[in-house]
């Protein structure tokens, strides 16, 4: 339906499921889609040591979550939070139409809450 890379990721996500150890858990729902994503993140020394996700939603949001986990791993929380949404979308393996931006940006939006959680 989209392209092979996207469909392959959708069917074989690399980061689906809980990592062995995690200290932060984040849930995000998209009201317009009924998408629901749950991230599990292990933060150590301000860095994303491990990350995984569960949930269901459209192909774009699922693939985006998987790609997001891949790119976040090993980065500092600041780096990940500072991800430029335009750049993120432009690097997505298929073009994202304006009506689907929310689907693609769901993981970014969700991850922003990590900082709040760390403060607590």
């Amino acid at each position, binding site marked *: 339906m989209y392209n092979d890379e996207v469909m392959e990721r959708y*069917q074989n996500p690399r980061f689906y499921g809980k990592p062995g150890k995690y200290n932060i858990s984040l849930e995000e729902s998209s009201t317009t*889609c009924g998408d629901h994503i749950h991230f599990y993140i292990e933060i150590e020394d301000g860095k994303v040591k491990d990350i995984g996700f569960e949930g269901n939603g*459209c*192909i*774009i949001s699922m693939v985006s979550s998987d790609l997001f986990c891949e790119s976040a791993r090993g980065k500092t929380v600041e780096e990940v939070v500072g991800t430029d949404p335009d750049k993120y979308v432009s690097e997505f393996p298929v073009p994202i*139409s304006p*009506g689907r931006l929310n*689907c693609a940006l769901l993981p970014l939006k969700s991850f922003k809450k990590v900082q709040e959680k760390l403060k607590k």
Partner: protein
Amino acid sequence: MYDVRTIREDFPILNREVNGKRIVYLDSTATTQKPRKVIDAIVDYYENYNANVHRSVYKLAAEATDLYENARKNVGDFIGAKQEEIVFTRNTTESLNLLSYTLESSMKKGDRILISEMEHHSNILPWMRLEEKGILLDYAKIDSNGYLDIEDFKKKLKKETRIVSIVHQSNVLGTINPIDELSSLAKENGSIFIVDAAQSVPHMPFRVNENFDYVAFSGHKMLGPLGIGVLYGKRENLENLQPFLRGGEMIKDVDFHKVSFEDSPIKFEAGTPNVEGAVGLSAAIDYLQDLGMDNVRTHEKQLTKYLMLKFADNKNITVYGPNEAEKRGGVVAFNVKNSQLLRKAKNEGIRLDDFIHSHDIASFLDDSNVYVRSGHHCAQPLMRTLKVTGTARASFYVYNDFEDAEILASKLGDIGVQ
């Protein structure tokens, strides 16, 4: 003769090409396209008549006021109502909110409001607001075929039920509710009966009957411009209601601490109204009447029947709502299963939805210029009842033809086999 080819010519936007191909517009339930006649009427209004209405004495103002009031009369005639029973609002949503705010003062804790499980958020949230006052909101159930469960409706129509507000045609299931029967039941019970006619007035012959207290609909869903809606209210009802918004236009006399309001319907139209919208809506009504509402209904029924037959051939497609085209409008909500995707996912122990997400369906169809809506269609309680997060939805109007339905069905056929 109803000839879609010539009708299509009347709609400039349908001549637009995207990526060198024509567009297949299947989202008229959300909003309809506009014929040249409506666009021209709006341009003509601004080029020749524009002035504020009901205020000034010069000729232009008188002509603008005439146009505005004639539009009101035309709307009234279209649904069998008197001119003074037509209040112009922005849309169905505003019409229903007007009722929620103005009927509130006559309601008390323990009173009940009866709606159904297939309502649009516009006919839920204005009533849910009153729950804060201790008023109870009841939902009549739907059955497994997408019809309103009349027995459940009767059971929930209680002594305390002050208001019954029901959608005439569902914007998702397409179900056409038996509003004559429901209105009789409501009246026998002494309840106020309100019809959300956003999807019926545009698509079928519609006459108000004496059991309807109020009817709400939107101009933009019936070939008219955005920003103009209608609230019909029986004359004595409107006279007894307090105004909604207050300000210019809607008064007879204002003293420092006292005001007397204009008669209805002007009482409900505070501030400068949307004259352009009323004029455009009136032109849309003329256009629909030239086609004939019986013909519009018949045309949509044929397209719906055809699409549902095509869908029945595709085992991956689940359609929601009644099977009989006779009892449903020209809107078909559906989901698509991709068995290949599912099988693979199962093998690897990963949980995927049974259906391809409706947004993915809509994006896929978008690649071929086939425009359908996806998501919850502003009817989340209904989605919960159907146990889905959303659906795709195709809807027909005067300018759609069998080819549109054919293209949709065949594109969806492609999804299953890739």
